[in-house]
């Protein structure tokens, strides 16, 4: 299990992992299959003890852990919350995860937390602000982080940079690594009418430490246009597998997460998705 050499922000093995769900605890330990590492949501492990912490302490003995935050609000107008950074630092101290990642989004405003990944305009101002926040987080946590590309449903009139310029700019200026969510690329490209293959081809893979693959649902906007919603409640869709194969062709094997957070399936279904990602990485399937 070698780690991917191209980003110091991530020591996960270049193989398949899954998002950890409590109901899979025993099966993960007994029959991990192709699952080589696990991802947890940081905010679910900030209590003092009990079952969540006990399970995580046990799992980290067998698996490299990716710690994925949802609450830092890096895209917020306000600086990241000091108390939350303290909680994260305490968690990372004992967990010693192989990587820490967060989102290009905001979720907190004026001391209130909204439990969603909200969008921001891409301008020179917002780029400078996000870079300052990433610097603050990396300094507070004493380690580089990975930043994840969002799912988008609309853009902002005031945006002057496209998403790739924005994300690459953050990585260049702060030294953070990137988490490429390929389902988000598919969702955004369908909603925003751009070519996802171009996006993948132009992505700065030398900065990528991890890939996410997840499910989405199909809806329609009030004008009757197709609107894909990122909901992590279904199997990875075929167009996403195709984009994934394209990414692996370009970059070689990368730590790849199957992200299934809602309507969580049985372990056999989830581990089969991980096995499919493994087969793509070892060249056993050509999806396109």
């Amino acid at each position, binding site marked *: 299990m070698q780690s991917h050499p191209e980003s110091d922000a991530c020591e996960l093995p270049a193989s398949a992992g899954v998002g950890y769900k409590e109901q899979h605890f025993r099966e993960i330990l007994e029959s991990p299959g192709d699952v080589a590492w696990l991802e947890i949501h940081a905010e679910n492990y900030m209590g003092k003890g009990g079952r969540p912490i006990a399970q995580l302490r046990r799992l980290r003995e067998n698996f490299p852990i990716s710690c994925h935050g949802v609450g830092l609000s890096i895209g917020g107008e306000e600086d990241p919350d000091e108390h939350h950074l303290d909680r994260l630092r305490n968690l990372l101290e004992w967990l010693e995860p192989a990587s820490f990642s967060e989102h290009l989004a*905001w979720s907190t405003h004026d001391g*209130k937390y*909204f439990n969603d990944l909200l969008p921001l305009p891409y301008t020179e101002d917002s780029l400078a602000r996000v870079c300052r926040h990433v610097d603050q987080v990396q300094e507070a946590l004493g380690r580089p982080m990975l930043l994840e590309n969002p799912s988008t449903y609309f853009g902002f009139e005031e945006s002057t940079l496209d998403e790739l310029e924005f994300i690459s700019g953050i990585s260049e200026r702060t030294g953070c690594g990137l988490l490429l969510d390929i389902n988000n690329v598919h969702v955004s490209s369908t909603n925003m009418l751009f070519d996802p293959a171009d996006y993948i081809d132009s992505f700065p893979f030398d900065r990528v430490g991890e890939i996410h693959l997840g499910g989405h649902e199909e809806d329609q906007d009030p004008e009757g246009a197709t609107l894909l919603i990122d909901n992590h409640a279904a199997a990875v869709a075929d167009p996403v597998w195709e984009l994934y194969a394209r990414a692996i062709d370009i970059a070689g094997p990368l730590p790849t997460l199957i992200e299934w957070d809602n309507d969580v399936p049985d372990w056999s279904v989830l581990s089969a998705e991980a096995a499919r990602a493994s087969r793509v990485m070892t060249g056993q399937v050509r999806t396109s």
Partner: protein
Amino acid sequence: MTARQAGFISAVLDPERPVPPGLVNKSRQATGRFSVYRNNVVVGLIEALESSFPVIRKLLGDEFFMAMAGVFVRRFPPTSPVLSHFGKDMPEFLLSFPPVAHLPYLPDVARLEQLVRESYHEADAKPVSAEFIASLPPEKLSQTQLLMAPSIRLLRSDHPICSIWRANAVGGPKPSYGAEDVLIARREFDPEPVVLPSGGYEILQMLLSGASLLDAFGHANAECGEVRLDETLSLLVRYGAITEIRNGAHAPVEGRQ
């Protein structure tokens, strides 16, 4: 653009407000798509409350709970990304929410669910064995200080809230009427509320504040007509609530340091 996010979130939470200006898809207006966030934010927070207050939800029914939670999340959005803390205002909210005014026990049931959740995430502690406690002569035990597990919680109610909780959460018998004092204790990982015998609440209040068992018993005697000390102690032992027995203020007899 610093006020952008304040306007954005106000419009997310209040569908009566106009959608923020300047949302586009290529060059077309994309105002209609703002509803994605109106839906995601509120539904996400309602789901967090559903998992935090399963008994309240069962008592009110799914549809009523969802409507009520929609009002709650707009009035008391979370103040931390750690969602296990979310909902601490629920008991107060229920007290002042007219549609549930005819259910006077509801705020205390919400309090109980909140304490169960707190207990679930509390620090672990190893209980003192029942054999060891049984081996202590009564005159020695009365002089000691019994330290309680961090996951212990206490709740006094004018309503049979523990019976209501048990009937709805674990299929306990139909609750009767009357006040209940409740101990929430966690044997390993799953907190369980149990009804305390007469005097048990007063004893535990004193023990939790560091009093000796003798002083706790004295206080309970002064406060209640009947104090069931043996029953209270055996309950504490059965639920693994005692983590250390100390002689006076120092010198642990057994347990963690």
